[in-house]
């Protein structure tokens, strides 16, 4: 019984563990957001200099690189190997551009910087290039939501499983319950041992879950260690923190309490009807 609860708990807990590790990993990745600032075509050199110095003053800017339109044009031509391209195009279609490397990944900060630059005179377009990390994070967020749904479903499963077990136990003790009622036991007195059992199931299940998770992590880390040279870097899964385990235990105990209370009071109602 306790093993069943432990395994049921283990499913969402493993998922949560993976997401937690993945989001920790994603925040550790040395990745710098970049923004590209494209300037208007008819901009003067003074304006370019002004924009450049403004960007330099911002403490968010880690690195600043100016690419004049001519250079960009040459680059494009060599890249495309189309020397004849300018035959059809009379003038350089590319604008001057600043490529800015930022020292922050905070979306809100980047957004506000983006707006500030956009408002500068002579700036045509500002493009933020932190897309993939954003995508990763939104995927992780989606997985989190999915896990939450899964956890909710499994909580319902737990309620049913514990409730059913308690109901069977009340059947086993039916004579005793009936007699206790006849000689003046209150409903809460009769329900109490069953509710304790339910809470105990919750607690036991969460202990089993903690053990299972620890074993899973240990096995995973050992395998990952073996493949370290292939993967080119160690991947280490971290266990849940003590607080998270305590929260999990509290939750499963509450589920146990709720399920057993419901099952016991239902059985009691049925027994009351019998006489």
């Amino acid at each position, binding site marked *: 019984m306790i093993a069943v609860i432990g395994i049921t708990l283990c499913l969402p807990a493993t998922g949560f563990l993976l997401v937690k590790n993945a989001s920790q990993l994603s925040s550790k990745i040395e990745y710098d957001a970049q923004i590209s600032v494209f300037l208007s075509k008819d901009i003067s050199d003074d304006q370019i200099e002004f924009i450049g110095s403004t960007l330099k003053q911002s403490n968010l800017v880690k690195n600043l690189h100016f690419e004049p339109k001519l250079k960009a044009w040459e680059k494009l031509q060599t890249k495309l190997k189309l020397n004849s391209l300018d035959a059809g195009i009379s003038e350089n279609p590319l604008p001057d551009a600043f490529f800015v490397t930022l020292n922050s990944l905070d979306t809100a900060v980047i957004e506000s910087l983006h707006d500030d630059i956009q408002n500068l005179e002579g700036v045509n377009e500002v493009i933020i290039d932190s897309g993939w990390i954003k995508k990763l994070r939104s995927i992780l967020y989606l997985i989190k939501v999915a896990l939450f749904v899964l956890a909710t479903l499994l909580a319902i499963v737990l309620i049913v499983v514990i409730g059913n077990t308690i109901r069977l136990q009340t059947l086993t003790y039916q004579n005793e319950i*009936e007699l*206790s009622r006849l000689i003046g036991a209150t409903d809460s007195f009769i329900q109490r041992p069953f509710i304790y059992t339910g809470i105990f199931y919750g607690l036991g299940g969460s202990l089993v879950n903690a053990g299972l998770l620890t074993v899973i992590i240990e096995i995973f880390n050992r395998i990952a260690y073996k493949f370290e040279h292939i993967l080119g870097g160690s991947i280490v899964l971290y266990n849940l923190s003590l607080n998270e385990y305590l929260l999990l235990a509290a939750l499963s105990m509450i589920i146990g309490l709720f399920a057993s209370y419901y099952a016991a009071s239902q059985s009691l109602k049925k027994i009351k009807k019998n006489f």
Partner: protein
Amino acid sequence: MIKFSNIFKSFSPANEVLQNISFEINSGELIFVTGSSGAGKSTLIKLISALEKPTSGEIIFEDQNLSDLSNIDMPYLRRKFGMIFQDHKLLFDRNCFENVALPLSINDTTSVDINRRVRAALNKVGLLDKEKVMPITLSGGEQQRLAIARAIVSRPSILIADEPTGNLDKKYADDIMNIFYSFQQVGVTVIISSHEAPQSPIKFKELHLINGELGNKDVPLLS
């Protein structure tokens, strides 16, 4: 102490089990509820012990109208009765001591008190040497005495027994009856249902049921 006024009880509209029952039981009395099988003895006993509620009519117990009593208060009322059931209702997965101790654990009695009082109750019915024995190994008469011990362990002021001697031979039945008489002698109200009133050495009141109606007759024997 207990007063029934115009009590009707039916389990289905076509089947009136008890009709227009009125009587009064005073503290310390010995009462026999008599009548043939199906006359409504067990139902009357259940009404007295508040296990059933009447369809209509009024039951006053210690100046309290039972129909005013909420379901939450019911268990506390029941603790005032010592109940001996027709089918004993002993728990066969527990030994004699634990069976007798059950009402005390419901009352939150301390374990020292439980020990003392359970032994006293077992001693009273002559089963002290069997406290560790499982009830299934006891004879019918002994099981009945065990049920009595369980009923008296919480020292109720009213003892209610539903056909306590129903399937016992005469010698055992006399033993059981003498136990009840001894309780009545010390001031306990004793209510016993039985086919017919026995040859009792002490004064008692008889509630004689005929087809759910009371053919009330006070039969004082030896006074």
